[in-house]
């Protein structure tokens, strides 16, 4: 890699050839603001706040899209830069009606951060989008036109990344607006990547924290919180920490403080899901393909875009729904509670689950899950109640049943495949398979499309693992090539879920994955509960299957 030398604000900087000015500056702790720039997408350079002055150039340049060059002399703080940056920020503020008081994005809002940093007047210009509409996408996302700064990250997320094309830019000039596609074929799958990439909270989850808070305040109900490990490991990010498992006990402490009576992780339902799929694997015909159904955005994708695959999907509900069913029946009975007095809240890195819990085939005789909170909403509740995470009294996770089940990788792409085949091996010969796959690194990598050969009970099986629905093409073309197909609609799987902590980038997806790997230890999932019998004995089949 060739090195180049340039000057930024009179400081000599050495960087790799091919880096942008923004990258070179940030590497050296020189701050450059960014709104439309996101490492998940190609440069758009439309917000114009990252402009810098380069000696010898007539106009300012956007540092996000301009490559650093040998000998370049760059200023990030000249009078011209300040004028343009501040004016562009002030004008964007006039596109964004401040709803900060009730906005969970407040803590993440890039625009607000920049206003504070540069001491800009947010009322220089009159708001011009007061009459814009809010579009609700199912029960998952809302696009609030009164807050949109036209950066189009949501468009990139929906079209370039996920290839769903549900969101579109309509109109020209100041009349442009982000709208749901008029083309009825471009159905939203509730993945929430638009919200995860919105710098100002114009695209947001439809919030449930108010309802949850009300239930907690009103009292009288036993409020049960279940939190997936992919969510638990990133909650700290909302408190300026890196993804970590060191904060688990404090997060649980905070949840107890908020009034959640019982707090469960997702190990048990993950095991149940894996076991039901393992059962399917062991019973499957040679030419049959088992396709996962634990990702609600994927299920909606199949139903919306490829109904012909619908019957080939596994009938297992997603883990938090499975758990909700168990909690409100078997666990309620065991604990001596009336199921009508139990409220189940799931904290997930997922927005699609908000829609999922309203499905007719899930929300039938009992609501297995009453509310879904994203990582951001849950963190917001902690902050809103002025709880300092670092100072929380540590508390322990409750156990739904006596069990030592561990399934930390389930939320990571490849994790479900591993879990299913581990259990399937036990089911077939009662033994643990130490070498399930040749290339474990590939199995758990963040690559969007992975083909893995699995040794299972002396047979070689072929699995396809997709994360990021934009990568689904190859699998749909030849599904029969595979014995098993695992799909997560979000890039990186649930570590990159639409309900994840903000911001989410390739780097944070990797860090979160590493946390899960660290927790994995030497254990391979073992059905030590005789879980399948247990389900049958307790009459829980219908709580688990569609």
């Amino acid at each position, binding site marked *: 890699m060739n090195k180049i030398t340039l000057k930024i604000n009179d400081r000599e900087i050495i960087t790799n050839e091919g880096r942008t000015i923004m990258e070179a500056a940030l590497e050296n702790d020189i701050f450059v603001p960014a709104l439309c720039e996101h490492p998940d997408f190609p*440069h*758009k*350079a*439309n*917000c*114009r*706040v990252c*402009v810098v002055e380069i000696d010898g150039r007539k*106009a*300012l340049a*956007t540092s996000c*899209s301009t490559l650093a060059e040998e000998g370049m002399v760059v200023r990030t703080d000249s009078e*011209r830069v300040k*004028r*343009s940056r501040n*004016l*562009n920020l002030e*004008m*964007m503020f*006039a*596109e964004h009606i401040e709803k900060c008081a009730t906005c969970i994005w407040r803590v993440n809002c890039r625009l607000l951060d920049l206003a504070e940093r540069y001491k800009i007047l947010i009322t220089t*210009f*009159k708001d*011009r989008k007061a009459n814009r509409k809010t579009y609700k996408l199912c029960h998952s996302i809302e696009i609030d036109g009164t807050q949109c*700064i*036209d950066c189009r990250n949501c468009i990139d997320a929906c079209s370039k990344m996920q290839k769903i094309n549900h969101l579109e*830019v309509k*109109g*020209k*000039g*100041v*009349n*442009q607006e982000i709208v749901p596609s008029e083309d009825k074929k471009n159905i939203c799958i509730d993945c929430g990547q638009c919200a995860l990439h919105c710098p100002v909270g114009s695209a947001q989850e439809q919030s449930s924290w108010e309802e949850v808070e009300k239930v907690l305040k009103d009292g009288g109900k036993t409020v049960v919180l279940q939190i997936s490990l992919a969510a638990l490991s990133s909650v700290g990010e909302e408190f300026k920490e890196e993804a970590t498992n060191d904060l688990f006990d404090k997060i649980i402490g905070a949840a107890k403080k908020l009034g959640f009576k019982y707090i469960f992780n997702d190990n048990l339902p993950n095991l149940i899901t894996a076991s039901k799929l393992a059962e399917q694997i062991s019973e499957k015909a040679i030419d049959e393909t088992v396709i996962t159904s634990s990702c609600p955005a994927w299920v909606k994708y199949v139903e919306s875009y490829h109904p012909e695959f619908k019957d080939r999907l596994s009938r297992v509900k997603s883990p938090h729904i499975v758990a909700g069913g168990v909690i409100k029946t078997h666990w309620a009975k065991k604990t001596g509670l009336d199921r009508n007095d139990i409220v189940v809240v799931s904290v997930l890195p997922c927005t699609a689950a908000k829609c999922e819990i309203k499905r007719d085939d899930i929300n039938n005789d009992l609501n297995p899950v009453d509310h879904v909170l994203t990582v951001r909403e849950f963190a917001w509740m902690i902050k809103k109640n002025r709880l300092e995470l670092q100072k929380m009294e540590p508390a322990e996770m409750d156990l739904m049943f006596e069990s030592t089940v561990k399934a930390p990788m389930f939320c990571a792409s490849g994790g479900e495949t591993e879990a299913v085949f581990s259990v399937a091996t036990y089911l077939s010969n009662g033994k643990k398979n130490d070498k399930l796959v040749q290339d474990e690194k590939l199995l758990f990598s963040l690559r969007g499309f992975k083909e893995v050969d699995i040794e299972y009970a002396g047979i070689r099986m072929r699995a396809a693992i997709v994360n990021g629905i934009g990568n689904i093409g190859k699998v749909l073309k030849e599904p029969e090539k595979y014995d098993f197909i695992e799909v997560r609609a979000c890039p990186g799987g649930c570590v990159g879920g639409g309900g994840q902590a903000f911001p989410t980038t390739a780097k944070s997806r990797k860090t979160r994955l590493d946390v899960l790997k660290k927790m994995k230890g030497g254990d391979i999932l073992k059905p030590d509960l005789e879980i399948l019998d247990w389900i049958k004995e307790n009459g829980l089949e219908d709580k688990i299957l569609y």
Partner: protein
Amino acid sequence: MSSILDKIKEAGLVGRGGASFPTWKKMSSVAKAMEDKGLNKCFVVCNVSEGEPGVKKDKYILERYGARVIDGMNLAIEFLGARQGFLYINHHYHKELAKKLEGLVHGTRIEIFVKPVEAGYIGGEESTAINVIEGKKAEPRLRPPFPVEKGLWGFPTLVNNVETFYNVSLVNSGEYKKTRFYTIGGQANNEGVFELPEDYTIEKVLRQTDNYPDFPFFVQVGGDGSGEILNDKLLEKCAGGAGSITIHKIGKEKPKDLFRNWTFFFYSESCGQCTACREGTYRLHEIIESDKPDWRMFFDLLLNLKDSAFCGLGAVVPTPIFSYLDNVLCKFNEADIDNAEMKEIIEAYKKIK
């Protein structure tokens, strides 16, 4: 026998769309991009979108010399081995000339592509034209890569103005006489499109065409939107840009009215992609329409456009206004500054200069 590229280079042909880029350079960039990337496919686009008020020469050329234009395109297509050519045409012109043009492109690799009405002024910018032909939103692309490297559907693409292709044909047949087309309008005595030597000064063009005013005047050169304003002492240079000269009688329009027209044009035509232009032209328009315009902010917004607009069209929004201030308003004698508003404008302008 020398190639068309050599002939163009020798003739010193430059683009007639406004940027005056050497035609041979652009053409050889396409050839080079194909070679570098090992591609056997490229495209040629002839730009007849003519969306800027005050410029009428593209239509004039297409009406009279359509066969020459198509010949010029064919020469480029042949030289580059282009897969296809597009005649990217303003819908008004297409309405009038469709039949004739269809006859001309028959049997060639050229397809007529009608620029949709809503693509407007920005639709004439070359990377926008590429987006429009691809069926995408009418807005410019981030550069680099430039269209010559990565244009239509990712392939190297040559986009030239209609006059450029006309000249290519003339150069090829040895008939190029270093002339260009001037659109003369405004308070002109003899308005119209005129073909005259390209090295004529603006003054000479005006005199030769019987358009030199006998009243105090200034001109806008290169388009009624983005063109530069020059007073009568500055006419010793050649007309740049798209070669239009629009005559204004001094005193006929108030400075504020001129500013209003210019900013309204850009406000209505902004594609909306970047903050500086989308919001900036909106705020300029808002300031002009307000009872008490904040001139300081008005000029700051213009400087911001110059410095931080996404594309060249956003960057030229200040051109007519600043050059009018420099070359007309600030040259007035004290006695000619007859109202408070003019004073205010000049005061505010001096502060940002």
